[in-house]
């Protein structure tokens, strides 16, 4: 589904740091996808049962990540949590991309009054600091996977809309588009054949880079109690559950946090790699100072 250019792979292998990021992302996607099938203690992961005798056990061979307040195995919960992070982040990015692209395209290409209004609305949303509006929305809509996705998507689409708008605008005045107009192609045709394909690239690239942030934001929402409800073992939620017991059973918060950290690092590294790859000035730097 994702086409990785040969060149890019070579670029990555030459740079061990970026390659590590790439591997992390790969592992995350794989584990996240097959998580329910690799659980050793599914009832623990899904939160179907509790065992007070086993509560608060520190990490051991039997429980690599220890157990939580209700005696559930943390390793299983963290593994299952990756799936939720994956699903939520992908959904958020997809949904906000869809909305943002449409809004940005219409505003940029049609322009005029509609364009201005759309962009002003976009600005109003952009006026809120990134996570804050999502938090308010999530608080009002209630907890849940869908509401989390909606709350985040509603606050994310403006970024893509703006990016799309700017890109479309610059392409609009490109010579080949002028030529197409002169030839007599209809507005729709021009949009479909020239504008859309060329403007999608920066936006979609940005979205790919943003997946890491989406994971982090979803985790933040869950940490604050407004994201996904228990017993869903989303990483932010697990960290929040461990918060009450931080002095007594630090591992409940530690391991989900490490998982979250590594995943986001992976995406950020990959994102940096892509940026450097695409930027001709940075790609072939050999010597900086004489």
């Amino acid at each position, binding site marked *: 589904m994702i086409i990785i250019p040969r060149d890019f792979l070579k670029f990555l292998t030459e740079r061990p740091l970026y390659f590590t990021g790439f591997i992390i992302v790969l592992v995350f996607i794989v584990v996240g996808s097959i998580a329910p099938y690799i659980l050793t203690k599914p009832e623990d992961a899904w939160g179907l049962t509790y065992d007070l005798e086993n509560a608060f056990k520190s990490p051991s061979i039997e429980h690599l990540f220890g157990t939580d307040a209700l005696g559930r195995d943390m390793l299983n919960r963290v593994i299952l949590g990756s799936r939720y992070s994956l699903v939520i982040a992908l959904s958020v990015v997809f949904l906000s991309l869809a909305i943002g692209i449409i809004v940005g395209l219409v505003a940029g290409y049609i322009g005029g009054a509609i364009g201005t209004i759309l962009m002003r609305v976009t600005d109003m949303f952009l006026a809120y600091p990134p996570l804050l509006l999502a938090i308010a929305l999530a608080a009002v809509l209630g907890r849940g996977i869908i509401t989390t996705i909606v709350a985040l998507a509603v606050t994310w689409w403006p970024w893509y809309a703006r990016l799309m708008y700017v890109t479309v605008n610059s392409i609009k005045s490109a010579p080949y588009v002028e030529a197409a107009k002169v030839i007599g192609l209809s507005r729709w045709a021009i949009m479909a054949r020239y504008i859309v394909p060329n403007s999608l690239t920066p936006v979609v690239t940005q979205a790919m880079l943003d997946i890491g942030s989406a994971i982090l934001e979803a985790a933040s929402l869950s940490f604050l109690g407004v994201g996904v409800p228990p017993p869903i073992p989303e990483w932010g939620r697990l960290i929040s559950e461990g918060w009450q017991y931080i002095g007594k059973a630090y591992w409940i918060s530690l391991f989900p946090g490490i998982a979250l950290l590594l995943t986001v690092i992976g995406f950020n590294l990959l994102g940096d790699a892509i940026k450097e790859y695409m930027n001709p000035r940075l790609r072939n730097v050999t010597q900086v100072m*004489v």
Partner: protein
Amino acid sequence: MPISTGYIIKRIIMLFLVVLGVLIIAFIITRVIPARPELLWVGPRATIEQIEKARKELHLDKPIYIQLYYYLKDFFSGNWGVSWRTRQPVLIDILTYLPATIELAITAFLLAFMLGIVLGIIAAINYGKVVDRVISVISVIVASTPVFWLGLMLQLIFSIWFKVLPGGMRIDTDVAIATGFKPITNFYILDALIQLNISALINIIKHMILPVAVLMMYPLGLTIRTTRSLAIESLQEIYVKALQVWGLPRRLILYKYVLRNVIAPVIAALGLSFGYTITGALMVELVFVYPGIGYYIGMALLSFDYPAILGGIVFVAMIYSLTNLVVDIIHAWIDPRVKF
């Protein structure tokens, strides 16, 4: 200076419109809340008459646009509702808690900015070498760390395990009592200096160390990465290479030319990161029980205290817009390339 007063006026008008939009969105949110607002207003032991009276007072019997009018009117006249948790007017609460957050934020930003630029340039100069690799790795880790988790872990290590730093609050109560510290402006550092209360000052700074350390992570990482790539780009510029060939001392090149190219975009990037820092402050203050705006909104969230949540968020959004405006202006002022 390339800024015209016309531009500033235009931006201020836009700011006002944006704030209006922010309020409208908040209003829509309040009407999405399921429960009947008048019941929420009067509380459990109310009589039927009291409920009816509240309905009239809150204008809930009038059409929605009139409600919006009253809502906006209330906001602009300072009536932001009463928090269900603290039972105080929301605006008063916010203004009381604001200075603490400002102290944290300014400190964190300054440190991130200074440290970040220095590290970023060092990394750029040593492109490809070990120093660069190490700094790059650090900056990525630092910018990816979940704020709330890092706060918890540092609290665990430094406060619970090793007991070298305090786990929360702005000042130790016994120190405050013993040295007679009194909050005047609510900017504790300022207050301690005004009262020439050095031991309190030291204690206050001790309490700020962990929250600031966590809060500056993201801006620090961002600054390093931005500085680094900008510096590398800048050093590639032909005129810079020319300067090197002509034999200008390295220091001079760096400070006079490279830095100037770097500062403006870095400030812009920092300005953008301000938004994330605000949410970061929310979580940092929650974890460290640091009584600032972030703590206030965070506690409001945890108890679903809607008046406080909305008041807090609108306030933060306004500050955010204002800051963006200021950053844009500074950016334009410093960087001659930006046009209007």
